């Protein structure tokens, strides 16, 4: 029964979601709305679960004084301060939460992401090599797009943006479309396997 009941729920819900797309009327349409409402509630609970999990993992790290436990203290402190200021005094402009968001969270997040520029530069020097014909083609395309997508490219040669636009519109779009069709077929097949109970990994194991 521990397997049959979840499989039956998956089958019923899955079939309703498929049928409602073609028949959005009563009673299937109503069931679709009901399931969507439940999904929102589950999403909200997942956030609470995520916060709880974060507290547990970092609480354990601090308790065991594992390597880097100081970062966990900072994380939990940040989490607590943002929750208290947000719930206590609101999140609109002029509140402590808004101030902390703009003067702590924004610069720290931006700094972490900005580091990427340095690593890309380093990686481009060390790893972006034309070792074979395919890599050479990729390298040439990348260079042309990089030049065509910035104003300096146009200043150097007026045709760089035209070439970059062509690469984006023709070979890129064709490749992206092929990938999307492949993914869509994969999603349909996996969904059918799950709905029909053939794929049971989500139930844990097998």
């Amino acid at each position, binding site marked *: 029964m521990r397997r049959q009941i979840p499989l039956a729920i998956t089958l019923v819900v899955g079939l309703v979601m498929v049928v409602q797309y073609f028949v959005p009327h009563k009673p299937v349409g109503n069931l679709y709305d009901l399931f*969507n409402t439940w999904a*929102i509630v589950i999403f909200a609970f997942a956030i609470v679960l995520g916060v709880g999990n974060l507290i547990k993992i970092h609480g354990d790290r601090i308790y065991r004084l594992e390597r880097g436990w100081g970062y966990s203290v900072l994380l939990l402190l940040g989490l607590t301060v943002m929750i208290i200021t947000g719930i206590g005094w609101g999140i609109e402009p002029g509140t402590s939460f808004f101030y902390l968001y703009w003067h702590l969270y924004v610069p720290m997040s931006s700094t972490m992401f900005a580091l990427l520029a*340095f690593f890309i*530069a380093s990686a481009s020097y060390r790893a972006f090599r034309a070792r074979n014909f395919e890599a050479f083609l990729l390298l040439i395309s990348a260079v042309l797009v*990089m030049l065509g997508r910035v104003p300096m490219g146009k200043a150097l040669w007026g045709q760089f*943006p035209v070439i970059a636009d062509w690469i984006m519109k023709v070979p890129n779009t064709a490749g992206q479309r092929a990938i999307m069709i492949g993914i869509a077929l994969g999603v349909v097949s996996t969904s059918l396997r799950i709905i029909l109970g053939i794929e049971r990994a989500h139930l844990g194991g097998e």
Partner: protein
Amino acid sequence: MGMGKKLSQIDRRIIFLVIGLAVALPLLFPIGLQIRVSEPAQRMYKAIDQLPPGSKVLISFDYDPTTMPELYPMNIALVRHCFAKDLKVIGMALWPTGVPLGEEAFEIAAKDYGKSYGQDYVNLGYKAGDIVLISNLGKSIPQQFPIDFRGTPLEELPIMKGVRSLKNIDLVIDLSAGFPGIVEWTMIAGGRHHVKVGGGCTAVSAPSYYPYLQSKQIVGLLGGMKGAAEYETLMNARGAAAGGMDAQSIAHLVIILFIFIGNLFMFLGNKGKA
């Protein structure tokens, strides 16, 4: 050790210094390079420009501070354009971190155009649910957002008068840094509820939206800081993105130079071995 091998093992701190200077110097001493407007940005501009005054535009702030240099300038430029055209703007977010960014963009643009909260624009804030939330907005917006970001009931806001679902929205603009984002809005709001969808995204994700652009499933697209700079150019208001394009230009040239040097040393090394 040959010179080629020595140079290929160059201290990465030197590379970091060079790229740091390549970004910082043009920001300190702008070059003022001319920005060419691409077709996707022009289409986005036209989609907003053609809307009659009073039309309702929904902007979803689905990004966070990590992608702020690319998406925040376009957020400001898009809101400014909507206000210049006397459009009513409804903001919301599928990403919790996007709410204060969208709010700040509203504040900046509202000050410039003398627009008031609740009358000309509103921020509904964040709600969990991702793609399911978009689907539910197609049924009822007030049911999903009974109150706005500031805690005001929706029925007390004049801008929300007559706005019951996505069917009452003339254009959805998604500022997307990933999932959930443009694809989800296009699938549900565009495909299912037949609302026009346009968007702005990071430069790295822009190529994946070109099929939607070509099939006209999205009305326009702003890709990265370049897209934002193009929109600022169309608005005749040079802002943060247009200023940043000088730095991006030099950084791209430096990276291309690194790629070239790296390959040259590999080629020389291979020749030496042979």
